[in-house]
């Protein structure tokens, strides 16, 4: 079997990214939308680490670490909003989050 090159990783990352985008765009459940965002971030991370490996420096890995920090912050804030919203409207569906459309 051929050696694994950067391209292989990029293909995997692209697949994850597209799946994440599909999840964000089509699902109603906010929790799953948030999880899809995590998928997208992971795809990006994978790209960055693959490039880091390709160029033989650590910048990609550094970016990945910051993105993971960002993901943690995003998850905390996002889920906080979700819980607050669920308390008020008792729903976690994206298309019912329409208070601003009134």
């Amino acid at each position: 079997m051929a050696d694994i090159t950067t391209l292989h990783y990029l293909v995997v990352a692209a697949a994850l990214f597209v799946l994440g985008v599909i999840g964000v765009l089509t699902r109603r459940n906010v929790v799953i939308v948030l999880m899809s965002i995590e998928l997208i971030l992971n795809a990006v991370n994978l790209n960055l680490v693959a490039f880091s490996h390709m160029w033989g420096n650590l910048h990609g890995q550094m970016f990945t670490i910051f993105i993971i920090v960002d993901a943690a912050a995003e998850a905390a804030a996002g889920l906080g909003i979700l819980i607050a919203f669920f308390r008020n409207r008792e729903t976690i569906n994206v298309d019912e989050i329409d208070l601003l459309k009134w």
Partner: protein
Amino acid sequence: MNPALNSAAATMNTGMAPVATPWFFYALAGAAVISALFVITRRNAVHSALALIVTLLSVAGLYLMLYAPFVAGVQIIVYAGGIMVLFLFVIMLVNVERSSKERQFNRIWPVGLAAACALMALFVSALVKGRALFPERLVKLSEGTNTQDIAKALYGDAGRMGQYTFAFEIASLLLLVAILGAVIMTKKKI
């Protein structure tokens, strides 16, 4: 550019022979993509979360294969051990039972799917056309000193500020803001 970062490639650790690399790659990549598919298709959010954990762990495995052990460790400890527990916690608090019986996809799903497919087409064309840009063989990063190198970039070395020290501090501020925001939003009365 910080010389410490580039010299990492030079001090390559030759002791670690990669183990059956292609097989591991295809197994991990397959697991990641298939469970990602599960993430966006399951009705039950807990099943989605479990699938996402598999994806995250597979990606951590891929990081290990890319000689980025520290990132892999952070991925496991922060993503799989922290963020996903938070997700599961929230799923238990909100009513999964009801939402899993409802319509799963929103009304504009064909549009979303089409947009995503267009994006995929873009990716495919970019990858096919740009194939020549990527070298056939990967440069081997030093795995043995990976953590130490990252520490030098983050905290600086020999009294000098590291390249990412400022960003690191900003990130800590971001986390603090996120903590405060989450607490304020979820607490019933403050």
